[in-house]
């Protein structure tokens, strides 16, 4: 592919090269770029900040690909504001400080108009200050623990109230087996911790007693689940219908489910509701022993709507691989990207402030029906589906929320944040606004 | 009972390496200023004896006294500081350092890391080193890297380093192994020279060398003393002959 250097970055690296007594590295500087055919003019750059190596590559590489697809598609449709879109791909290599560095590069060197990226909460946390300092725009496509609301970030994934709470409602319901006892199993990091904190409070409000709630945390990449699974089994033998709510991080799921299967825990006696297991993860598992296990998402590949069908078709053509699955974060990027396109069109410019303001209220149809709307707290309205794993590695939807659920940046189930809301629309224009004291705790944007 | 008039007093020492008795009730007494040659076939326990004296190996039984102090409880550095210097069979000098740097490290005195850190060469040290260079005839090589020198020169440098320690007792392990005859004789002179001020224990195969030293000889065999006395006397001893020539 042709390599042209944005002047500034060449200059910048000229200095750096000089600084580190290495000649001409500056010239080497460039980024992978995909060029559009049709539209003319100075391209609008879109940053893609997903790990292509290291532990997170497993999940994030796909999102890089889907972005390239969406951008190519947009260019085919004539680009944006009559200008071509240009993807700037970097590899933060699953290294959190590197995320911050790369974010800074994208914003200050490549001067991208928007960045689509991050998967783990920690990567988002590490780039957040950079985006706020340089007033960038980040679209974050993964379900997460919320309790955050930055003006510069649009959270296109699910907040806990768009995934965890409905999922538990289902488990409590007759259809879900009317569970009376809950094992909350998760990897020891922020998302599970927060989600479980929220769930515990919620469950108590539903009259579940303390002794009927078991919380267990395991390290990243836990591969030996024998003990914990047997603990779950024992926990399930108290004569009450028991369910497991799993916030186990992607990688550790395979051994976890394998152990479940082997220790003979079937979905009909102890159903497991997972928040981080999607089609992508299933593709890496032998799903026969998992049939009937549950997952809660805002999107499932199996949901058949014309839009989804088209999307999947496009994806298969783009990746030249009819087996590649689609999943929830991919849809989140699809929605986020199209919303951004709309906002830019609406604002008539890629100026960050204008676009950020234009974003609120933008509506974009979901792939699975219903319309996503960008709320003032930079979260979306989403449908919530409960899917059961099938032996073909897909989910079959067994339940959905009657209406779209608006995302909450701040959980009402956490005492410290029950009075907080995020609202970036005037006059409040504040990420964490206390509705009782009527004050803005964080920085307020004039 | 121990005799404090002795400089080194090894008594009934035994040591076993997983089953194999390397040293068996070995006793050895050395008077101040004495030079002693120790001979014996391979496996007689010569090097092990040195290991025991210098604290590298702990004896299973027996006592080792140096100037009346029991050495068996002490570790190598302490023993070295007490005034026992050791020269290895294979010349072990600091090959990455120059001759002068080698000698400088060996000089008696500063030993604790911090003082070494702060140490700067003093006039006295310089003149000591000059003297050692002369003694070991390495003046011309003062700033050469030890690693680059000939085998014999390394041997001498190591002896020089021993001198630098100003020990009361030198343990010298096969100093002339692999030396030319000329070097061998020169080494003998050097050791006699040294012996004027210090006690020396030499372990050696080379009979001509031992003869050149002209000192009391102790014959080790299978970890214990076989015979002791002037060379001629000892070499006449049938048992010694048997051990050396075999039956």
């Amino acid at each position: 592919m042709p390599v042209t250097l944005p002047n500034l970055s060449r200059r910048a690296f000229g200095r750096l090269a000089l600084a580190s007594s290495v000649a001409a590295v500056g010239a080497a500087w460039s980024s992978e770029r995909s060029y559009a055919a049709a539209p003319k003019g100075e391209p609008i750059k879109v940053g893609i900040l997903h790990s292509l190596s290291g532990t997170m590559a497993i999940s994030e590489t796909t999102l890089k690909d889907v972005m390239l697809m969406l951008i190519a598609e947009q260019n085919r449709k004539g680009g944006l504001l009559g200008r071509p879109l240009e993807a700037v791909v970097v590899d933060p290599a699953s290294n959190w400080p590197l995320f911050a560095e790369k974010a800074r590069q994208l914003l200050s060197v490549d001067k991208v108009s928007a960045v689509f990226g991050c998967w783990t909460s920690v990567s988002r946390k590490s780039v957040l200050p950079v985006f706020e300092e340089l007033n960038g725009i980040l679209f974050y496509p993964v379900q997460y623990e919320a309790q955050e609301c930055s003006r510069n970030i649009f959270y296109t994934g699910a907040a806990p109230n768009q995934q965890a709470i409905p999922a538990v409602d289902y488990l409590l319901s007759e259809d879900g087996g009317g569970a009376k006892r809950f094992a909350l199993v998760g990897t020891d990091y922020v998302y599970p911790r927060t989600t479980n904190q929220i769930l515990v409070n919620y469950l108590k409000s539903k009259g579940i007693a303390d002794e009927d709630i078991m919380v267990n945390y395991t390290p990243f990449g836990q591969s030996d689940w024998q003990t914990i699974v047997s603990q779950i089994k024992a926990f399930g033998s108290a004569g009450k219908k028991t369910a497991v709510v799993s916030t186990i991080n992607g990688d550790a799921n395979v051994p976890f489910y394998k152990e479940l299967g082997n220790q003979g825990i079937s979905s009909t006696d102890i159903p497991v509701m997972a928040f981080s297991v999607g089609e992508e993860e299933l593709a890496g598992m032998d799903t026969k022993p998992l049939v009937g296990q549950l997952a809660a998402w805002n999107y499932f590949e199996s949901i058949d709507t014309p839009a989804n069908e088209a999307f999947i078709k496009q994806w298969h053509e783009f990746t030249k691989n009819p087996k590649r699955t689609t999943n929830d974060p991919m849809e989140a990027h699809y929605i986020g990207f199209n919303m951004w396109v709309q906002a830019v069109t609406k604002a008539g410019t890629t100026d960050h402030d204008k676009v950020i303001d234009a974003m609120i209220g933008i509506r974009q149809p979901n792939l699975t029906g219903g319309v996503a709307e960008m709320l003032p707290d930079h979260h979306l309205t989403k449908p919530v589906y409960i899917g059961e794993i099938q032996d073909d590695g897909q989910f079959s939807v067994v339940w959905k929320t009657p209406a779209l659920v608006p995302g909450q940046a701040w959980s009402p189930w956490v005492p410290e944040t029950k009075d907080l809301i995020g609202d970036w629309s005037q006059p409040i224009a504040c990420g964490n606004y206390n509705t009782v004291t009527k004050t803005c705790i964080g920085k307020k944007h004039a | 009972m121990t005799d404090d008039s002795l400089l080194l007093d090894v008594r009934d020492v035994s040591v076993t390496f997983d089953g194999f008795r390397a040293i068996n009730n070995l006793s050895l007494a050395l008077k101040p200023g004495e030079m002693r040659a120790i001979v014996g076939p391979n496996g007689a326990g010569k090097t092990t004896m040195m290991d025991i004296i210098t604290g590298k190996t702990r004896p299973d039984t027996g006592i080792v006294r140096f100037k009346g102090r029991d050495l068996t409880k002490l570790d190598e550095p302490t023993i070295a500081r007490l005034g026992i210097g050791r020269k290895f069979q294979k010349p072990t000098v600091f090959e990455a350092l120059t001759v002068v740097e080698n000698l400088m490290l060996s000089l008696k005195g500063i030993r604790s890391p911090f003082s070494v850190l702060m140490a700067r060469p003093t006039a006295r040290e310089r003149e000591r080193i000059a003297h050692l260079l002369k003694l070991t005839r390495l003046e011309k090589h003062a700033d050469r890297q030890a690693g680059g020198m000939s085998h014999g020169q390394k041997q001498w440098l190591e002896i020089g380093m021993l001198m630098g320690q100003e020990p009361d007792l030198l343990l010298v392990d096969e100093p002339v192994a692999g030396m030319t005859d000329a070097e061998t004789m020169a080494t003998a002179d050097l050791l006699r020279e040294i012996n004027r001020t210090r006690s020396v224990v030499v372990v050696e195969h080379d009979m001509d060398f031992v003869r050149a030293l002209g000192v009391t000889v102790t014959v080790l065999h299978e970890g214990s003393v076989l015979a002791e006395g002037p060379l001629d006397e000892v070499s006449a001893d049938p048992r010694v002959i048997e051990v050396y020539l075999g039956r």
Partner: protein
Amino acid sequence: MNLLSKPGARSFPGAVRMAAVVVVVAIVLAGASMLPESNPLHVSAFVVSLAGKYLAYAMLALSVDLVWGFAGILTLGHAAFFALGGYAMGMYLMREIGARGVYGNPNLPDFMIFLSWKSLPWYWWGTDHFAWAMLLVLVIPAALAGVFGWLAFRSRVSGVYLSIITQALTYALMLGFFQNGLGFGGNNGLTDFKDILGADLHTPTTRAVLLVVTGVMLALALLISRFVVGGRFGNLLVAVRDAESRTRFLGYRPDQVKLLVWVFSAMIAAVGGALYVTQVGIINPGEFAPANSIESVIWVAVGGRGTLAGAVLGAVLVNLGKTLFTAWLPEFWLYGLGLLFLVTTLFLPNGLMGLWRPMKKAAPEEVTPEVSDTQGDEA
């Protein structure tokens, strides 16, 4: 373990020159970054923060070189000290946020609130005072290094064994810090810092200053290291590295010698870590990852083991390469990095420094005295 000749000359002109270069570069870059955007000589904040990061890494490399290049201790866990220093600094920066956190709690950092803790754990006390925090930066890693080194060297753990347990050490620390219960923010670590000593971390000025400070600290570290490894102690180190038992028979205590340099190097690493955090804006358990420690060893190998300047050079170059490749060839940069390691170890045993400062003839390989003894006639 003795493929290197005596590192450097008796004095290390390289080190001094490098110290000067570092300071100058830092000042130049800092200055240039203060120029208005329009000015052709302007340097972007991105470059400044990068440079700062590289220099911080260089301190880590320097500390590794001290123990590996000069004392022959291959550490695979030095990033632990780097990270600990970082955490100490991070604690201070965390407290500086004060009531500006998400939950607006003046006393507790956000992550403690989400763990619904009610009060500061004791080990956070006083971390709001810069001086105390800086003391922690130095003391904690030094203490850990002290205890660990004392145990290890006293019982003559050496070679691979030492390498592996250093790795185990940092690995254990990583797992520990991952735990939210420990009170250091778990996987997320400490981040979202606002300012240091009242100065906003996100202003060009602060960045420039931090860069210069880092440069100066690195230069300082270089000079002190030079003082340590030059002169007699340096010779003693080499002696211990090449013929440990011989030094014992000379009356030295190798364990103490190693311990001294080990602790000193841990402190350099810690300072590097502290400065690193201020410029990168986040410290988390990932920094303890054994891979990081190994990479830092690589930097030294690339630059030239046993040469102070080489360590710095290696750290800067490798990381520069990483920065370029991760953006240039996002899909393939790992091949580049991997090849770099292979090439260096195969063809540049003395690293880049070896290229223009031909090493003195290496001392003969193999057979350290210990071995020759066991193979001696008693063996």
